[in-house]
């Protein structure tokens, strides 16, 4: 932990008009860590993700990633810089095939220009072939290659989630942000997902930050956990510490004294 953190959020926050959605967020994530971000509904977890990925520009504080300041960069620039994400409500390219969904993520890695595509120069064929090969290999890792010609919207829910993670990984991130990956999954699918996350983390040497409501999943795989409530960080530490943290219990269950009196 002596090394410089991969992601360093220093007092970041955003204000929408008079509403402070999140403020004073401090997060430090080191290379290779698997970190959880939890909190009650409306605590500002997804807003924090949107700050990290450039969907919102922070109105306070700084976000540093891999030695670069992210404030004000556009989402596509941040993705190319090495942060990619999945979404709480799945956002696949519905009408595209499974294979093409992954190919889109390789977009910025291929180099053939618009002109060489229109004229079908050799660089076009080479570039497209490379993308196709890589995408097929990728689908094999995620056991989706038998579905590669299927239209994304026709996949069952669990596989759509899987594909979304595959697509986010194909963009070649150093830091992967997962927004409620287990939402809507049954216990067996959640268990499979936990295996998958552990697997990709090792396979791709990833650093992962995930938002999740499923406490079994969070406590089971995360090394450290940040807890948000009302737009503020109220605690951070190892799972055991968080589980017994009075402020966290208060945020989720209400104040103990109050409930005793009532």
């Amino acid at each position, binding site marked *: 932990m002596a090394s410089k953190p991969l992601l360093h959020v220093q007092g970041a926050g955003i204000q929408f008009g008079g509403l402070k959605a999140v403020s004073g967020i401090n997060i430090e994530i080191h290379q290779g860590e698997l970190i959880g971000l939890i909190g009650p509904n409306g605590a500002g977890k997804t807003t924090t993700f949107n700050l990290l*990925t450039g*969907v919102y520009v922070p109105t306070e504080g700084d976000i540093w990633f891999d030695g670069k300041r992210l404030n004000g960069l*556009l*989402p*596509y620039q941040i*993705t*190319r810089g090495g942060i*990619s*994400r999945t*979404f709480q409500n799945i*956002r*696949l*390219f*519905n*009408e*595209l*095939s499974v294979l*093409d969904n992954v*190919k*889109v*993520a*390789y*977009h*910025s890695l*291929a180099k*053939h220009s*618009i002109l060489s*595509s*229109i*004229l*079908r120069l050799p660089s*076009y*064929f080479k*570039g*497209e072939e490379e*993308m196709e090969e890589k995408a097929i290999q990728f689908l094999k890792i995620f056991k989706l290659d038998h579905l590669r*010609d*299927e*239209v994304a919207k*026709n996949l069952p829910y669990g596989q759509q989630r899987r594909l979304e993670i595959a*697509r*986010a990984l194909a*963009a070649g991130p150093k830091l992967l942000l997962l927004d409620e990956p287990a939402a809507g999954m049954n216990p067996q699918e959640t268990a499979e997902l936990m295996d998958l996350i552990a697997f990709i983390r090792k396979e791709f040497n990833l650093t992962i930050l995930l938002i999740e409501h499923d406490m079994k999943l969070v406590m089971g795989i995360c090394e450290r956990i940040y807890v948000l409530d009302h737009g503020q960080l109220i605690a951070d530490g190892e799972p055991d510490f968080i589980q017994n943290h009075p402020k966290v219990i208060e945020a989720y269950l209400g104040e103990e004294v109050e409930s005793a009196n009532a």
Partner: protein
Amino acid sequence: MKKAKGFWLSIILSLVVYGVVQFLINSGSLNPFYANTLIFIAINIILAVSLHLVIGITGQFSIGHAGFLAVGAYISAICTMKLEFPFIAALIVGGVVAAVAGLMVGIPSLRLKGDYLAIATLGFAEIIRIVFLNIDYVGGAAGMQVSHLTDWTYAFICLLITILVIVNFTNSRHGRACIAIRENEIAADAMGINTTYYKVAAFALGSFFAGIAGGLYAHNFYIIQPTNFGFLKSFDILIFVVLGGLGSLSGAVISAILLTIVSTFLQDYPETRMIIYSLVLVIVMLYRPQGLMGTKEITDYFGKWTNAKGGNSYGK
């Protein structure tokens, strides 16, 4: 490669079509009225396909396409009539200027989405029309005389190039980026795609070919007037794309052919023309709300030599 085979097959097929029509025209067995209808069909296909790139592929609902048609028409007419350029050069200049106009309109207005973009593009098209209306150099409201230079060969070559360029664009990583924007802009952004760049690029490319169509159009009618390029013309082009099926290039081509023929032959019945034309549209939309082709391509029915042309050439 299999793909290349299908590609050459379609080139040969289209050259055969060209040759047959050219032979019929030369031998005089196709009367000038029909020959002219064919040229008009070619122009409409170019317009439909160029708008298909903007609406069907990139998902940006632009209804000001006639504005770029007007730019191409006037600029190429100025080139041939006032500056005495050769016709080919005039066509290209018309296209390039229309593309520049597309950039100028697209960069500010493509920040808007949905209805707002539609209104903005409609407004820009009207501005372009009013500008030509008030420039005496191009004849103002009276219009501008243009010599008849468009023939079947010019129209066909332009059509072929338009379709080739747009198909090749769509089947590359750039086209896939555009389709990704259509499908989910936020996700496209999160995948590292510069969405603004691709929206503007598709818009400019579409405007370029609308400009080329404008050049052909101007030199096919002896006279061009600003009234030819009103918003009704924009809607005509929009109808080709929607009726053919949003996202289907072959759908746009088929509906452009079909509707041009319908409206040409209805000219004999001027009292009922618009009624029947509208009825055709209503009936198609009632029974095929997804358009004639949906999102499929005609090549889907002949095996798979294409990739995701309109986004969804696989699947059910």
